[in-house]
């Protein structure tokens, strides 16, 4: 069972469709003085919401979570600890490397942020200097949010050395648009359900079982120091245990462009714009999946959480109902004969929280030039294996499908589309022989990145230790048998994982991809260096 008192509520609570808090506020800060930073953490620690605290009132009183970026971890003297993982644990190394580098350094190579999304064109707070921490607040009512914000504002005002860099505020829409994002689609329906998380699981949330039914994902996919889907326990040191990694991304949505494009494709092909949009997303605007409602929207189906997400792509190998490259099919292929296998899919799941920012553009209205979009947060235990992998291989490429053959044809909704001769297209197969397949040519980029950063959501104990400058207790090293999965090199007794202070400067992590495996391993490098030395003599 997970220790819900230790895990911050943003990790496992309030991310499902319909349960997300209406008002969300993020305050980004940069620390300049270590003592002040610790004192600030100490002051705010009693208000930080754990999953257990969230369960008491469902977050009605407002929720505060604190996430730290690598520069802050380094400042507190734990950078060396993250470094200790590098040499001993390949998987965790990739995750730590991503976290260390930060989003800006990896945006172009791993996340496809180029052209108008390029980091050089991001908003200044995300672009100029790395952020240190974010205070994530949310509440179902404006008053509750104001209360939480008030206490955070007071605390920040009390420590002059803490630089308040930037604020982001988002709110879900009311009435007919409740739960929808700016393009008009219900958002956040397919979410992973986590084993031992103590909440309800709906069909479709986890991993498809062999014939029917769904099983929950193991908690290590989202909570550090827990067994994951590979049977491994990564990040077992007390510092990381029960924490999680949080990806923050500010995504601007070009609503006018999207509506114009969809309308023009619909007119050329004699169908409705709703049909074109639904085929691009894989769901109708209400959230009803094309796999269950292929011909027309079915709001009744969308309202039933037991049905809205309960489908696989087994009997739709050629994309007749849900096109092969549709947004939801790419990002969560479930069981798909044309896509990656179930074994592979479950290694790349993410928990998403998307909150719209900016005013809603009324249906039929012309684009008013106002910026609007989504404050997008991802929770995962391994940024490289989960978020970055999905973004790189599934959203911005086609390599996991046995039918999609154009690498330039990317996710039609959120993909980083090229322009000019390399522009992507989107093909909607047609079942009638008298009609050609619908092809949407020259897809524009409907979503551009305005900024973002990678953070760690530490456990409450770790936050306490940071606030009080307490080094974590020495690691209990048990002696696993040789063939157990625990026999990982990181469990070696000679590696002291509890070393809390920086002793030597951390090496520069690789922020550009070693796409090809032709990077020699450390051992190979060492051997080569030794051989070289002998050669030279």
């Amino acid at each position, binding site marked *: 069972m997970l220790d819900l008192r230790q895990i911050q509520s943003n990790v496992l609570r309030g991310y499902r469709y319909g349960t997300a808090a209406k008002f969300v506020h993020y305050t980004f800060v940069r620390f300049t003085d270590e003592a002040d930073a610790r004192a600030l953490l100490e002051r705010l620690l009693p208000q930080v919401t754990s999953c257990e605290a969230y369960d008491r009132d469902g977050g009605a009183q407002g929720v505060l979570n604190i996430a730290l970026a690598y520069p802050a971890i380094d400042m507190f003297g734990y950078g060396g600890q993250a470094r200790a993982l590098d040499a001993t644990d*390949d*998987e965790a190394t990739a995750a730590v490397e991503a976290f260390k580098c930060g989003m800006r350094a990896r945006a172009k*190579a791993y996340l496809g942020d180029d052209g108008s999304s390029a980091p050089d064109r991001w908003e200044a707070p995300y672009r100029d200097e790395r952020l240190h921490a974010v205070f994530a607040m949310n509440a179902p009512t404006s008053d509750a949010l104001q209360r939480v914000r008030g206490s955070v504002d007071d605390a920040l005002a009390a420590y002059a050395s803490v630089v308040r860099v930037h604020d982001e505020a988002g709110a879900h829409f009311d009435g007919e648009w409740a739960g929808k994002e700016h393009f008009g689609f219900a958002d956040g329906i397919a979410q992973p359900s986590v084993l031992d998380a103590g909440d309800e699981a709906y069909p479709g949330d986890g991993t498809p079982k062999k014939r029917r039914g769904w099983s929950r994902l193991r908690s290590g996919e989202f909570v550090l120091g827990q067994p994951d889907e*590979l049977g*491994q326990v990564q990040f077992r040191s007390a510092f990381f245990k029960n924490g999680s990694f949080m990806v923050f991304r500010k995504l601007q949505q070009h609503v006018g462009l999207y509506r114009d494009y969809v309308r023009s494709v619909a007119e*050329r092909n004699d169908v409705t714009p709703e049909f074109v949009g639904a085929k691009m997303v894989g769901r109708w605007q209400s959230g009803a999946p094309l796999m269950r409602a292929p011909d027309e929207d079915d709001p009744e189906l969308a309202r039933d959480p037991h049905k809205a997400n309960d489908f696989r792509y087994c009997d739709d*190998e*050629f*994309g007749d109902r849900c*096109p*092969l490259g549709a947004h939801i099919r790419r990002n969560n292929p479930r069981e798909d004969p044309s896509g*990656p*296998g179930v*074994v*592979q899919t479950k*290694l790349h799941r993410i928990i998403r929280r998307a909150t719209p920012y900016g005013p809603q553009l009324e249906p039929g209205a012309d684009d008013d030039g106002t910026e609007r979009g989504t404050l997008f947060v991802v929770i995962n235990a391994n940024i490289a*294996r989960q978020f970055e*992998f999905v973004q*790189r*291989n599934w959203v911005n*490429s*086609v*390599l*996991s*499908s*046995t*039918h*999609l*053959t*154009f*690498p330039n*044809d990317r996710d039609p909704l959120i993909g980083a589309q090229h322009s000019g001769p390399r522009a992507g*297209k989107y*093909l909607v*197969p*047609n079942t*009638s*022989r*008298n*009609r*050609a*397949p619908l*092809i949407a*040519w*020259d897809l524009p980029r409907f979503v551009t990145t305005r900024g973002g950063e990678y953070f760690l959501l530490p456990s409450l104990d770790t936050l306490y230790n940071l606030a009080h400058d307490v080094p974590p207790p020495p690691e209990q090293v048990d002696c696993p048998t040789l063939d157990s*999965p625990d026999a990982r090199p990181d469990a070696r007794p000679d590696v002291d994982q509890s070393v809390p202070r920086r002793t030597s400067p951390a090496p520069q992590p690789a922020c*550009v*991809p*070693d*796409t*090809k*495996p*032709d*990077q*020699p*391993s450390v051992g*190979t490098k060492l051997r080569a260096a030794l*051989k*070289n030395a002998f*050669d030279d003599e």
Partner: protein
Amino acid sequence: MTPKDGLSRRDFGRAAGAIITTGLFTGCRPCFSPFTPESEPLHRRGPRTFTVRAKVSPSHFRELRRLLNDPTHNPFKTDARGIHYARFFTTGHDTLYFMVIYDEYWNAVHFLGKNAEGVDEIFGHCSGFPRGGAADAEALDRYLRDNFLCVELFYRAYDTRQSDIRDALVLRDNFLSFLRDSDGGTDADLRALYADFVDDPHLLNHDKSKTNDVPAALTAANRTFQLTPIRSPDRVGPFTLLARIKDKELKKVQRLLRLGTFATIDLGVRPLKNLPTLHFARVSVVDRNYMLFASVYDGDFIQYVEDFGTRIAKEIDKIFGSLVGYPMAGSRDIIAFKAFLRARQVKTNAFGGSYLDRSLLQIKSSLALSKALAEFTQSVGPSDRRLGAKLRHFLHDNQLLLT
């Protein structure tokens, strides 16, 4: 790429043939020869491979490595007619490998001869290289034959010649441009654009009644063969692995590998066809008990490794299971498998190819589409009364080749 239900009669025949031949010839087959015999039947034609293993002259290694690791240095200055992929790598500070995948053995020899200047610069560091350099075709041929490595396993995902692949890729791009331009236009526009399209010289290659003589300038085949470092995930890349084979496992794994080659080359079945990203794979045994595995694959390494563990785990476990240090749980234990591969991989110093920016699926669907288009354009002309309807039917029947 088209849907098929069940086992076709042809596949059944092949499988039966494979079983019978397995019984008869297991263990007796020689390793795969890279040199095309003159009388080889047509259906066995296709990309072939050789690897040259050269001893680096003492004290020349550092200079050679500098040359190979220099991203601006490209030994090949001409177009690579008949060459699919090539790579250089070194092991043990005294051995240079040159691995090439080509259509005809003489393509490879001529390719090296034409680029004699760059080739000599590299091979000049190796002992035994002909004095006259690569320009001396006869001496070069002798040198290659003396130094080539026996290929135990050779797997190829397609049997098509390099020039045909290039033409098919260009043709599909041209066809898409035609579709895009004619989308939403009038019937007259469609006929005019279609008339232009059927004149596409790349179509000729698939009409066997005509001679295959598209000028190089009209195809994509006039590009220089570049040996460059690879960075983008959409592109094709090399993977090379050198690992020790367990004692007593050598004979067993050799039999298995030769059988795999026999199935791929002679029977035309694809034991690894479940892997949508693997272009070529080849295995040699070097130094008596080391396995040298080299492959050409698409995209991200993690994706590739996961595909191994999820799509062809059984085959991979059989082959790599004979290696020292292979994880007990096999390739399904992705972390241990990845660590195993990383620990034993050999750095490929230089890699080049004729279509580095095209994935395997792109190549395969382009080939299928160009075949379909050759038939379609022969039966339907620009003045056909029902051109629009026939084109719609064609698109419907081949829509998966356009996704």
